């Protein structure tokens, strides 16, 4: 009894101090960070580790439910590379990522520069571009699927009307064009995001730098090369990194437009990984492909973080 009487106030004091630190000390910061960490670990960290683990295991229908499975070493990786479709998918992924990002970035930058000219209505029209961004990928895919349709698609009609092509191009089913059909749709889908981020970066460059450069004798092209581009360095880094991640994540367009066909000519890594896991039920290979992609994203992120380390602004 006496013991309890003695410890009571001590525990109460501890408790009070803990609550006080929650209210106005570092305790509150730790609480916030902690909540985010728990969430991150549970929702992203554990599945990620599980995925990596699975890529080193033998997975079949019988071991699907268990965590500990026979160790496979790098056998899954070797098997994936030996898949007949591997190099085709790698090439498609490269085309998809490189040209989607390139198209989104170049056209997005051009539009951002255009709308930075401050003509009447510039910001309103720029706002309208957001429409493409809020549309779900499946819807965009379906629309582009119609536009690109070989027999009744509007793109063919326009190109024929302009005299660029003589007969219909079967964008979605011609092996030479199928991957490009998805690239075109993806460029359209990511354009607004690129333009918006780049617009923000452009707006952050002080006007008087351009005026000083102009008085120093720089013409428009020289101002772009010596002022705009270097000042946009971190923005461009962010746009390209996010673009890479976004492109490697882009999934909806594939089932909506080509379903990876014909004969895998428009299959890219992320779609292949999904096919492996959820159509062929080869979970080990599906996980392996996604880990390979993860490594690519990781390398890109490291390059980005390093490039922004010596920020020059301010």
């Amino acid at each position, binding site marked *: 009894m006496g013991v309890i009487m003695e410890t009571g106030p001590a525990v109460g004091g501890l408790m009070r101090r803990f609550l006080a630190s929650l209210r106005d000390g570092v305790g509150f910061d730790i609480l916030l960070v902690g909540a985010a960490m728990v969430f991150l670990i549970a929702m992203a960290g554990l599945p990620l580790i599980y995925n990596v683990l699975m890529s080193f295991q033998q997975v079949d229908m019988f071991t699907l439910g268990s965590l500990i499975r026979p160790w496979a070493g790098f056998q899954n990786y070797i098997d994936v590379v030996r898949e007949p479709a591997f190099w085709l998918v790698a090439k498609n992924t490269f085309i998809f990522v490189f040209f989607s990002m390139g198209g989104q970035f170049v056209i997005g930058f051009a539009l951002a520069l255009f709308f930075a000219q401050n003509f009447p209505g510039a910001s309103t029209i720029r706002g309208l571009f957001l429409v493409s961004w809020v549309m779900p990928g499946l819807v965009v895919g379906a629309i582009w699927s119609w536009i690109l349709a070989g027999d009744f698609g509007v793109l063919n009609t326009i190109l024929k009307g302009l005299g660029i092509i003589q007969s219909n191009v079967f964008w979605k089913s011609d092996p030479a064009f199928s991957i490009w059909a998805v690239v075109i749709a993806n460029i359209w889908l990511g354009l607004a995001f690129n333009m918006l981020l780049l617009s923000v970066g452009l707006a952050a460059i002080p006007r008087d730098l351009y*005026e*000083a*450069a102009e008085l120093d004798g720089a013409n428009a092209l020289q101002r772009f090369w010596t002022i705009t581009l270097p000042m946009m*360095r971190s923005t461009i880094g962010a746009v390209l990194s996010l673009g890479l991640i976004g492109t490697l994540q882009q999934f909806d367009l594939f089932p909506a437009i080509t379903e990876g066909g014909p004969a895998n000519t428009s299959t890219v890594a992320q779609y292949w990984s999904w096919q492996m896991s959820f159509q062929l039920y080869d979970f080990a290979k599906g996980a392996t492909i996604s880990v390979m992609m993860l490594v690519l994203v990781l390398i890109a992120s490291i390059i980005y973080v390093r490039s922004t380390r010596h920020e*020059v602004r*301010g």
Partner: protein
Amino acid sequence: MTAQIELKNIDKHYGAFHALKKVSLSIEKGSFVALVGPSGCGKSTLLRSIAGLETITSGDLHIAGKEMTGVPPRHRDIAMVFQSYALYPHMTVEENLTYSLRLHGVGKAEAKAKAAEVAATTGLSALLSRYPRQLSGGQRQRVAMGRAIIRNPKAFLFDEPLSNLDAALRVQMRKEIRALHDRLGATSVYVTHDQIEAMTMADWVVVMRDGVIEQQGRPLDLYDQPVNRFVAGFIGSPAMNFVDGVISEDGRGVVVGAGDRIPLARQAEPNRKVVAGVRPENLRVAEGAASFHFEVGNVESTGSATYLTSKDGALQLVQTERLGFSVGDRVGLDIDPALVHLFDPQTGARI
């Protein structure tokens, strides 16, 4: 002497807003011209129009004898020092200095040598490899100056270049800029809202208000002979006192109150309503019979000077000796009649 910059009837509209109204100004080669005026009077607009950063609505602008309409800033061969300095944040001091040379295809070695030379004259030699964010305000100011002088341009334009510096540094930079101007034999146009800066640095001062040049002339001429009440109040620190009054019957004084009259050196039109302008530093505490009086409302002493302000705030007096007055004292004042200015109460024009 030839005019290096010649402005004739310059008009500038921002939409419906008339920012510059028929501005005509001739700037001699080798002169240092200050543009002064209250905030929003169009000083920056005028300067930027000379640089070509603003297009003028109408009027003629000649630089070194050449018509400048339609000539882009980069072909005007003019250097500008911005209030914000506008240093290129992603370039080192050396790269900032040599930017214009590199654009004009000057070789690396030559540009480097030129930068070293300019850095030596501006005191930047030790800072060449730093970035602007690693510099103090005064050092940034010097880089901005160096970037301007490295090109040896036809004219230098300064837009309030010292307003971001502390008072002591401002006084020092004032002298340095003027010394640099003399050494280079440059033509400079200097915008400031600080009339002391204008008076001390310039050969020629242009006072602007609401887009109009109110008066231009040599600094002391503006001080001695302001053409109107606005210029009189703007030039000189502390500002000129203005007292409403009526010219006396004999025309030799301004009656400003019961028994108080400010003497005049010349005959004026009797019974006319006027505003008398007297500078605080010209007022004297009367030894014998005073011509007019005021009641002390505030006494400030800086050690070297004493400032007395009247109870109603209308009059201020500066004396270099220490005065033993305190609040509430009635002080008799006197003034040299030759130093009294008269203005029309309606138009503000000098009488």
